[in-house]
């Protein structure tokens, strides 16, 4: 299934990795910027995994952050409450294991949420997934062991540029290989026409649940990374607005384009930070509470995308480097 193109993507990623690392070490890129890059990479993981569910398989999900919440809280509970480990290299295997378990827990939830999707489509599925995300948030809000509304605090800062980068890259490659192999056409077929997919002999149930499980797994891992980056997991962080943010990234990049997801995750994370800085300094100068207008600008951006470039930045196109060699049938 894997072809010669994987090394090309690998080389490009390795190149980017080295460049960022060197820039950070030489002081060209300060730690604040590196932090934003880490956040961007986590959003890459979230957006690419949502793309598998939403873009490639066509199952409109509004609860992606719910999966991330499961991953963040499960992995955070393991490293913080269960083992209470310090973020040292020796303890790293515990962190990796916690991430994987968090991802698996999210995948399990993904399978559960995948089942209503067998019967529901479009708006109805969107509402079910929205409700699901809110249920997760509310449950977390009420479990005092993990901090309740205060959030799970004091999570060791295991996440760093290296692990965040590797996870984003692995997510991209896995979803890419799934989507572009001849086998992965199953996902596209379901998006295109579920009835016809079933009639060519494709087990649509299996593939829909699979899309939810895999998408949720990576979202769970991303949630775990976020928790161990910010050193906390908070219910509101994983609420509806969070899911919408990922959705905006997906649509801005182009539903169905992994290249678009990567670019949009970076662009919008940086835009958020820039807006934060610009608006904060503006409010300091004018003494007006302009900082809150950030989300308004964000929503406006979404409206503009829908009005003027419905297909997003990339549509369904991919950069050459992300294209797996056509499987010969």
């Amino acid at each position, binding site marked *: 299934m894997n072809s010669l193109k994987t090394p090309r993507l690998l080389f490009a990623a390795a190149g980017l990795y080295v460049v960022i690392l060197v820039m950070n070490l030489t002081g060209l890129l300060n730690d604040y910027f590196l932090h934003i890059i880490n956040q961007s990479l986590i959003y890459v993981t979230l957006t690419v995994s949502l793309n598998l569910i939403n873009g490639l398989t066509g199952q409109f999900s509004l609860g992606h952050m719910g999966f991330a919440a499961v991953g963040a809280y499960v992995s955070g509970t393991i490293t913080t409450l269960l083992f209470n480990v310090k973020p040292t290299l020796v303890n790293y295997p515990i962190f990796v294991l916690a991430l994987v378990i968090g991802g698996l827990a999210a995948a399990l939830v993904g399978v559960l949420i995948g089942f209503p999707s067998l019967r529901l489509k479009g708006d109805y599925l969107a509402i079910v997934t929205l409700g699901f995300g809110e249920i997760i948030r509310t449950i977390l809000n009420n479990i005092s062991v993990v901090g309740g509304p205060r959030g799970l605090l004091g999570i060791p800062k295991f996440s760093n540029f290296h692990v965040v980068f590797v996870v984003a890259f692995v997510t991209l490659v896995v979803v890419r290989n799934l989507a572009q192999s001849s086998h992965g*056409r*199953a996902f596209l077929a379901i998006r295109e*026409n579920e009835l016809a997919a079933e009639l*060519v002999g*494709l087990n649509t149930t299996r593939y829909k649940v699979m899309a939810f499980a895999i998408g949720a797994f990576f979202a769970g891992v991303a949630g775990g990374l976020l928790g161990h980056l910010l050193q906390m997991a908070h219910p509101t962080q994983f609420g509806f607005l969070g899911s919408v943010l990922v959705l905006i990234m997906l649509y801005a990049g182009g539903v169905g384009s992994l290249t678009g997801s990567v670019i949009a995750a970076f662009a919008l994370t940086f835009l958020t930070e820039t807006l934060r800085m610009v608006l904060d300094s503006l409010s300091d100068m004018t003494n007006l509470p302009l900082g809150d207008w950030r989300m308004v600008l964000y929503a406006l951006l979404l409206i503009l995308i829908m009005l003027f470039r419905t297909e997003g930045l990339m549509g369904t196109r991919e950069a050459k480097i992300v294209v797996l060699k056509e499987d010969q*049938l």
Partner: protein
Amino acid sequence: MLSVKNLKVAYGQIVALKDVSFEVPAGKIVTLIGANGAGKTTTLRAVSGLEKPVAGSITFKGQEVGGMDAHKLVSLGIAHVPEGRKIFPTLTVRENLELAGWTIKDKAEVRRRMDEVFTFFPRVAERVGQLGGTLSGGEQQMLAVGRAIVTGGDLLLLDEPSMGLAPVLVDEIFDKIVAINKQGTTVLLVEQNAAEALEIADFAYVLETGYTTIAGPADQVSCDAKVREAYLGV
């Protein structure tokens, strides 16, 4: 090859098929004709596994298949061309056909069948790199039938293949159906265009509000006074 007995299918509280029985002998073309809402499409959907029967039996090649999943019936040999074609719009014609060979392990066989489709429908061959959704209605119908050819099967279910097509294309599609049948595929055809359907069919059944009412050899059914008045307009 296919035997349907006392089939009853309901959508929730609404009973769409009350008592439908018919036989499709191997190698023949059988048509179900009837008005809108008579239950023609529902009958086909039940045969291909898209609807689960409430009562009655569907026997295919001697095996009870009522209630089986549609994707499993595909490998048993039932190919269903659904109403409204249902092609994959943003995949290319080639990808549409490749996907149709999903259940076939031997990819050389898929390619052989695709070539068969291309000789059968030269128009489809010309459009091979184009997106399915950009084809004209007639070409989409050809692609849908072509997809069923690739999927393969001993029984081909066709739901309103003439819908929305220009008369000249209707003739072409019906010619192809006869040709497919001559190659050994049994055909179950659902049509509103009763005249054309009766012309090519060996046997015909009339469906009325969920019941099979008239049955017989196609030429006999087309002479039936009620059929002539209600469906043939003469």
